[in-house]
């Protein structure tokens, strides 16, 4: 037992030093992207944006555990997830600038509602909770086709109140589907605090009511999130059914650029929350695990800044969609089988 104390937590999970550096980089990049988008909003260049500040560990740590074939159903706040998944920063910025070369939505959705066949990310939407049912449908499709794939569903604490959540959780449990329900509990649904949202201490308590495994993790700890997600994925692959992972984290900014949390959040609480910084957390961990290297850290910061700078310029130079383009892709433009066979 005492020997185990000498193994770092990441090693216990089979992660190498490079993995930790990669996690660090992805979190730094996420934050750099997030900060820039927020600032661009204040400059009137990005019209609306939901920051993931404070949720980087929950997002990057969980997404890092996924296999390439796994599928993701996400909400509007998952910038760290798509970064970890490999979406280019250029694509993220082209999207935020509603440019025609954005592969996600080409000016149609508000920023952050990513979707990519290549990255196995189902298209996100604004109605809270709907993606939960889609994600379960995706897992059903994997099982239907006999594929060894899991689907991870990202959602917030607020989304657990929806009818979609209930339908999704119940169906996934009944059919023991390969689903990871990854709840980022950032304590707020806009201005509605957890206490007015549910009456249990932890949302994981809800899992048992569906006959599902529930795992509570420190969402500020990227290693812990990674480990819990990987364990949940293992259960999913082996047919043991869905897992509800609750990652407790903090929302370090207002709900979106359109919100002003001073209306409902005391400044001293916001200040106190700032101390719960997943990036500082990881830095401390890396120091303790002798993985910290000022040079590596500086490089990470510089590389992220350069990527973001490049992406900003790329986006600014990219063309806007033609107005009339908005009338395309309402229905498939090819003739369907049905139509070919007739008339």
């Amino acid at each position, binding site marked *: 037992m005492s020997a185990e104390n000498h193994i770092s937590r990441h090693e216990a999970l089979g992660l190498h030093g490079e993995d930790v550096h990669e996690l660090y980089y992805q979190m730094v990049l996420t934050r750099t992207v997030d900060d820039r988008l927020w600032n661009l909003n204040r400059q009137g260049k990005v019209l609306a944006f939901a920051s993931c500040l404070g949720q980087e560990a929950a997002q990057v740590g969980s997404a890092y555990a996924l296999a390439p074939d796994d599928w993701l159903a996400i909400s509007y706040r998952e910038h760290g997830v798509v970064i970890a998944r490999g979406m280019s920063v250029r694509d993220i910025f082209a999207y935020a600038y509603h440019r025609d070369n954005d592969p996600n939505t080409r000016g149609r959705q508000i920023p952050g509602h990513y979707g990519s066949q290549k990255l196995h990310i*189902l298209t996100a939407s604004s109605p809270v909770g709907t993606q939960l049912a889609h994600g*379960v449908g995706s897992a059903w499709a994997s099982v239907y086709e006999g594929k060894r794939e899991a689907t991870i569903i990202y959602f917030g604490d607020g989304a657990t109140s929806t009818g979609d959540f209930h*339908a999704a959780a119940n169906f996934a449990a009944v059919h023991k589907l390969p689903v990871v329900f990854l709840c980022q509990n950032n304590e707020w649904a806009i201005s509605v605090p957890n206490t007015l949202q549910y009456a249990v201490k932890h949302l994981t308590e809800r899992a048992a009511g569906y006959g599902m495994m529930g795992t509570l993790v420190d969402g500020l700890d990227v290693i812990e999130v990674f480990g819990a997600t990987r364990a949940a994925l293992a259960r999913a692959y082996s047919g043991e059914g869905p897992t509800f992972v609750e990652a407790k984290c903090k929302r370090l900014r207002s709900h979106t650029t359109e919100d002003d949390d001073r209306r409902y959040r005391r400044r001293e609480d916001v200040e106190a929350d700032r101390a719960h910084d997943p990036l500082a957390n990881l830095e401390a961990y890396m120091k303790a695990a002798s993985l910290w290297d000022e040079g590596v850290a500086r490089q990470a910061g510089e590389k992220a800044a350069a990527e973001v700078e490049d992406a900003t310029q790329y986006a600014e130079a990219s063309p806007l969609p033609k107005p009339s383009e908005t009338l395309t892709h309402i229905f498939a433009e090819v003739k369907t*089988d049905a139509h070919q066979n007739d008339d």
Partner: protein
Amino acid sequence: MPIKTMIEAIRDALDAEMQNDPRVFVLGEDVGVKGGVFLATDGLYKKYGMKRVLDTPLNEIGIAGIAIGAAMRGLRPVAEMQFADYSLPAFDQIANEAATIRWRTAGEFSCPLVVRAPYGAGVHGALWHSQSVEALYAHRPGLKVVIPSTAYDAKGLLIAAIRDPDPVIFFEHKKGYRLIKDEVPDGDYTVPIGKARIAREGDAMTVVSYGLMLHYCLEAAQAEGIDAEVLDLRTISPLDRAAIVGSVKKTGKCLVVTEDTQSFSITGEIAAIVNEDAFEYLDGPVSRLATPDVPGMPHDPGQEEWLLPNREKIAEAMRKLARY
């Protein structure tokens, strides 16, 4: 060619496409062992097993939402809503999600989903087993809305709907399930979505209808000896504008008949289209016959019959328009 009822034709279509395409599966409440409350899926569970004929928990949000997820992943779900009336809990998933997936991703994702549901009154089922809800779905661009009036069309349109790469909402008149019978070929064939059908040729007026009411229109024209052209919409959205306008240009008059409650029903859209494209040809106002604006169909058969359009009321509306 064998004569089949509409419900048999629908079962045929499901069976044919499940045979043709392993991606097609059926889900909904009681669709499995029981075979559906109207037996539309009778026998499919036995033939294809639970994975492809799936009894869901009682939650229409889930039925639609899970089907949407599976459709985005390339499967071809056919979701049954037990009654059109009970599709409303799923309205958000269908109207806000399914309808927008292709457009919002500029074609990166699509949602080849069929939602089937029995609609219509005349069976004393009262408020929640009688509704016509096509206007609600037709109003959301991105959805196709189909209502067959013959067994032949039911089969061909349902196969077309399943093969369609976009979401199709497919309503079947529950009273027509066994009442409507006609020649239905074996094997698979399609009837194109988006094309109306001239069910009866005529010159005196155009009567536009669909579903069970179409038959009452035909019977009324026959009985009255009115030379009405009866147009069967078959697809409610997108409307076959050319067919409607073409017929009205020929006849100069237009009566629209629906079983739905009148206000803000699809009758208005047709009035608008005819005004836009055939106004100069009109020899009388675009007229309509529908169920009066009641919040629900009454259970009492006397009241129900009194409210619903029927042959006599249609004939009267035709006579009135003919006199104009």
